[in-house]
């Protein structure tokens, strides 16, 4: 209650400031009547999630801002060829990954070097991308936009294209100046606003309604005996890296994958620190049953293959764990076979548990769905 009062008085103070300043600004925009102001949108975190990393105070959510972010997310106008949006490679039914694509697939059928990660629970990410190069959600969209094999466009050009909407004769009429005005109070279209709107939308993309979540909230019947068994094995054998309710410790680790043909060095390409060679960000496992293929280069198509890799007991394969100086110590315990020892039954239980992290509400939630402007292939 005290918090609410605090927020109210803060808002009142803001309003007072806004009123007292309104005559002194030289903004040529007509004053927007109060009822045209963006509608604040309350953001709440699931109680058992940690506090968000993203600083909402610098970019408070509004209904109109989130809506604009959703349009930008799906609109191919962000790409050089005008036909690849974020939603092209981050598709809702696959928990915002690119179903059936091991590597990202961009303009002119160009192929990237890494698997498209899920866009979910972004609010809690301490870093982004497989190599963790970016630390601020607002700086995430320019990476695929300007990547030559993804959207191959300049942010500056996107801003110019957005200003020229709606495009006469276009099949999809989107009036971005109008949407920016609704979201930010004036129709000025800037890259900063564009990134903020995209962040607002991504902030809302929270997955916390899987069967596991219902179980956590006290519904013991939400999981079967095998799934509960899988959960306890998971906690013993997997949770040191896939930690907490987001199922990641957010660290960079070398999980013993044989380097691929391009010898992707992962985190090392950001830090140039030899200790970071072959390390990649530990991904969240939420919705993992929906986000195949797996690993930074999509080399495994099933969860069974993933666990076989960690178990390191494939018939006919002496050692699936690639040994290098940065191999994670948890996979290389002295006096023990490398990897994580798992029986066939344990693997089945773990996989059964992992599937309880599939969030059907999340992948069907209309708030996150393509508003009818998306493209896919």
């Amino acid at each position: 209650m005290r918090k609410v009062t605090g927020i109210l008085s803060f808002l009142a103070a803001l309003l007072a400031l806004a009123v007292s300043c309104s005559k002194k600004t030289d903004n040529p925009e007509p004053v927007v009547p109060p009822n045209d102001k963006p509608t604040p949108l309350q953001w709440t975190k699931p109680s058992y999630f940690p506090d968000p990393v993203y600083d909402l105070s610098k970019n408070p959510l509004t209904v109109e801002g989130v809506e604009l972010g959703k349009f930008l997310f799906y609109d191919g106008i962000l790409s050089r060829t005008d036909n690849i949006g974020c939603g092209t490679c981050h598709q809702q039914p696959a928990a915002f990954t690119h179903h059936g694509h091991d590597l990202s697939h961009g303009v002119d059928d160009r192929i990237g070097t890494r698997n498209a990660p899920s866009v979910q629970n972004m609010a809690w990410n301490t870093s982004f991308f497989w190599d963790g190069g970016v630390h601020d959600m607002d700086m995430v969209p320019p990476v695929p936009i300007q990547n030559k094999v993804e959207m191959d466009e300049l942010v500056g050009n996107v801003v110019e294209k957005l200003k020229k909407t709606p495009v006469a004769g276009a099949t999809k009429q989107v009036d971005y100046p109008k949407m920016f005005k609704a979201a930010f109070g004036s129709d000025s279209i800037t890259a900063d606003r564009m990134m903020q709107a995209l962040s607002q939308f991504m902030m809302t993309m929270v997955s916390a309604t899987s069967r596991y979540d219902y179980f956590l909230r006290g519904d013991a019947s939400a999981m079967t005996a095998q799934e509960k068994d899988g959960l306890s094995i998971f906690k013993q054998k997997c949770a040191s890296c896939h930690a907490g309710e987001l199922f990641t410790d957010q660290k960079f680790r070398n999980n013993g994958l044989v380097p691929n043909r391009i010898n992707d060095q992962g985190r090392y390409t950001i830090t140039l620190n030899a200790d970071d060679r072959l390390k990649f960000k530990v991904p969240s496992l939420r919705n993992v049953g929906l986000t195949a293929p797996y690993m930074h280069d999509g080399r495994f198509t099933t969860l069974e293959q993933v666990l076989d890799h960690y178990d390191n007991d494939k018939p006919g394969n002496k050692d699936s764990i690639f040994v290098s100086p940065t191999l994670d110590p948890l996979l290389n315990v002295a006096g023990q076979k490398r990897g994580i020892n798992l029986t066939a039954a344990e693997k089945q239980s773990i996989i059964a548990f992992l599937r309880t992290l599939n969030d059907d509400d999340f992948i069907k939630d209309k708030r996150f769905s393509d508003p009818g402007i998306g493209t896919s292939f």
Partner: protein
Amino acid sequence: MMKRTLSWLSAWAFASGLLMVSCSFPDENEDTDPIETGTIQLQFDNIVGNQDLQLDSTRYQNAAGEDFTVSKLNYYISNIKLTRMDGSVFTVPQDSSYFMIREADSQSQKLTIRNVLTGDYTGVEFLVGVDSTRSVMEPDSPGRKGILDIYAGPTNEEEMYWNWNPGYIFLKLEGSSDSSTTPNGKYYYHIGFFGGRTERTINNLRTVKLNFPGQKAIVTTSIVSNVIIQADIQKIFNGPTQLSIKTSPSLMFTDSTKYVADNYANMFNVKEIKIN
């Protein structure tokens, strides 16, 4: 922490802005001792050995005997200081101290610096690149606008910024060479890295100090000195560590970029000072 500091700073700036709006009145400080200032120009002239640099059309040869053309040459110059005869230093105000030299844009090569304290200057000092302070500022902060705007203008158009590993590309040199082993015969040198945001990385920022040879740059309220600074591209290849296009046709995010930075840190010299 950084973010918190910044938001406090911006709140403070906002508050002081309000104060200024509400309290501004005509300047009545006419009777105090005026500080006299003038203008100085730093003009960058990119050359290759003893020839003027021509984009694309001219083929040059480096000390390794490799032929090359230059199709693109861009670099940031920032944090400019001018040294006086008595050893004292005039630091160009931070917000007026960021430039990007582009060979393809002659206007970009002439840096006009105003509000310089009058006096006789005998040297100049600058950074090749963009310092870490600006590199880690929020992209929407005022200090990251203008030439440092990563989403608009030359930095965006010339792609002088790594989005995936956020940081400015301090110097970008590209061209063609028969010695290049890339499929298209081009070579690419993109040198960045400011020392790291969350973890220490290599730091390719280089400070260049130049003395004016036997000449002074005079700044008065009416005299504008034009300091012609030559940048010799040959020295990017032929510096303390010889650079071979055949061995390294592409240098972007590797440790060895530091040798390229060491090389180009030595490519500048003051050719002459013209008094206008």
